[in-house]
């Protein structure tokens, strides 16, 4: 089934895996992503593995260095980059690898954030314990949302999740639970200190902590997309019916992918609550979902490395663009989103990967 080096599975061959399975040859968003996801070969050669491992270690070390030199606001920004990277990674699993378009992932981000805030503010749960709780809750909610999503394809799923994104702030303001959620004003939580008396400031510790969580989740995503489940996800994306004919349990896989994706974004939301120390309903409006989507597309829809680029895009563009005008971030996002769709559908990550493949020859 896998064929020679670089071949994709048979049912993904036509049109390089466009979602329009009629092989119109339309620009492929997922086809290159498949290659990027390592669909090129199920097992990497020995020295390829070593190179990738070295690159990853170098990236991690490079990411940890700023702890010593930056502080305060810049470290906060870097921490938010990590947070957004995990969130966009979750979205990438769903949209990039499984082909289900979600414009409502801000919902999971909000649920994760509120889980952490509620646990910490009401019951003094230690911050690190709230992460597994947020993960579990968001996975469950993701699974539940994935169930009706089974009946929706393409536009309709985008529409439904978009509607969810619009409705989130109102849902968070429900009076009945405002004693726990803080209602319209939201909740404030304390910044955690470095444990074991380490000589790090709160910001520095949070950054390293987020980096650690990020590494764990990137490892999970990497393994997920390179194993059998990853293959099944991509098969369902490229041609669901053929995948089902091959024995993939379509319903279970799609709902599980939704659960995985929700878990990632939920944990990112939980981290964001700890870092920002504040949650409020109006902070999780429709634009959170839209910006996550934009970050994903710009970074590369099915590119794990691209999610980091997307996260940097989400974090730094508003800061730079707001100096022009309050409206500029939206304009920049919009223009870049349209430009990427027209010119570089596989996003920055996919583009980098295709350069890499050219050089390898």
């Amino acid at each position, binding site marked *: 089934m896998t064929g020679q080096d670089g071949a994709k599975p048979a049912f993904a061959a036509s049109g390089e895996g466009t979602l329009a399975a009629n092989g119109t040859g339309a620009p492929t968003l997922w086809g290159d992503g498949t290659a990027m996801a390592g669909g090129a070969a199920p097992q990497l050669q020995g020295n390829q593995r070593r190179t990738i491992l070295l690159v990853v270690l170098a990236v991690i070390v490079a990411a940890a260095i700023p702890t010593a030199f930056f502080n305060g606001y810049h470290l906060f920004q870097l921490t938010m980059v990590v947070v957004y990277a995990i969130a966009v990674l979750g979205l990438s699993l769903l949209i990039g690898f499984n082909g289900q378009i979600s414009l409502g992932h801000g919902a999971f981000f909000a649920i994760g954030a509120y889980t952490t805030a509620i646990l910490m503010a009401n019951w003094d749960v230690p911050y690190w314990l709230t992460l597994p709780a947020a993960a579990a809750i968001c996975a469950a909610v993701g699974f539940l949302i994935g169930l*009706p999503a089974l*009946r929706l394809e393409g536009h309709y799923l985008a529409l439904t999740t978009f*509607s969810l994104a619009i409705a989130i702030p*109102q849902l968070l303001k429900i009076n009945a639970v405002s004693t726990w959620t803080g209602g319209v004003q939201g909740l404030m939580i304390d910044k955690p200190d470095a444990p074991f008396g380490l000589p790090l400031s709160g910001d520095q510790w949070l950054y390293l902590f987020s980096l650690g969580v990020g590494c764990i989740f990137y490892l999970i995503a990497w393994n997920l997309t390179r194993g059998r489940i990853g293959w099944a996800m991509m098969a369902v994306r490229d041609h669901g019916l053929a995948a089902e004919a091959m024995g993939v349990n379509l319903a279970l896989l799609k709902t599980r992918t939704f659960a995985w994706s929700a878990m990632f974004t939920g944990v990112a939301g939980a981290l964001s609550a700890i870092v920002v120390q504040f949650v409020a309903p109006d902070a999780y409006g429709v634009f959170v979902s839209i910006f996550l*989507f*934009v970050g994903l597309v710009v970074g590369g829809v099915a590119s794990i490395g691209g999610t980091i680029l997307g996260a940097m895009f989400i974090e730094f563009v508003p800061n730079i663009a707001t100096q022009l005008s309050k409206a500029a*971030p*939206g304009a920049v996002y*919009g223009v870049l989103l349209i430009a990427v769709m027209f010119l570089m559908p596989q996003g920055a990550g996919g583009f980098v990967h295709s350069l890499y493949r050219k050089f390898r020859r």
Partner: protein
Amino acid sequence: MQGFIHQVMSGIANGSIYASVALALVMIYKATHHINFAQGELATFSTFIALTLIHAGVPYWLAFLATLAISFAAGMAIERLLMRPMMNAPVLSSVGVFIGLLLVINACSGWFFGYTIKSFPSPFPNRPMLGGYVSGHELGSTALTLVVLLLVYLFFRYTRLGLAMRAAAFNPASARLVGVRVGAMLGLGWGLAAAIGSIAGMMVAPIVFLDPNMMFGILLYAFAGALLGGIDNPLGAVLGGFAVGVIENLGGAYVVGTELKLSLALVIIVSVLVVKPTGLLGRAVQSRV
């Protein structure tokens, strides 16, 4: 009982606005099989243009017509520049372009016109009518919307151009063969949808006040209405819009409370898509493997 009638009448008035936006959505869906996520933002931008004209001294109805013309032209331009190349693109590409359009227009509204909430004048007398159950504006906007919908219906049903547009949406290949310029028809469709959306914007702005994010909630209700009535059926979309307006008001008043009205729309959307995806009046679509 009085309160109930109030809610129903108010629901019908709101529903007329949702019906307009839903009609615009359905028009674009019928022609391109894409859902226009940026419909609300187009309407908002048009409303801002109208306000600018009015502040510049142009009489209301002249500004109204000018805004219609500008929106029509803008819709045609957007179709030609952005949507034409995306005709055969995968779903994600077109969704991405729509979202990008939403962001750009939202940003332009904020950039050119500012984020402060502005009041928008209503052309209708501001006194209770129909025995005190509706305000002048509610009655006027409902009447205007119904007139517009009637005109659109007559246009599509009884004019050659309307027939050509319907043909282009129904079967582009065959329409081309009989000489219909499908691309131009799509452009007209977009222009018309943008113009109808701008009417909705100008009718709702006096009620909810004008700011760049005005139309998000209304867009949600319009989605619910369009899906409820059938995303490919214009009459269904209109009826769905009115139905959603009434349901929203009654539900908000008696069932879930005003704070959960948007969630009610979400529930409608999910239930319709899960129970009867084609909506009440839509045609069942069968796909071949």
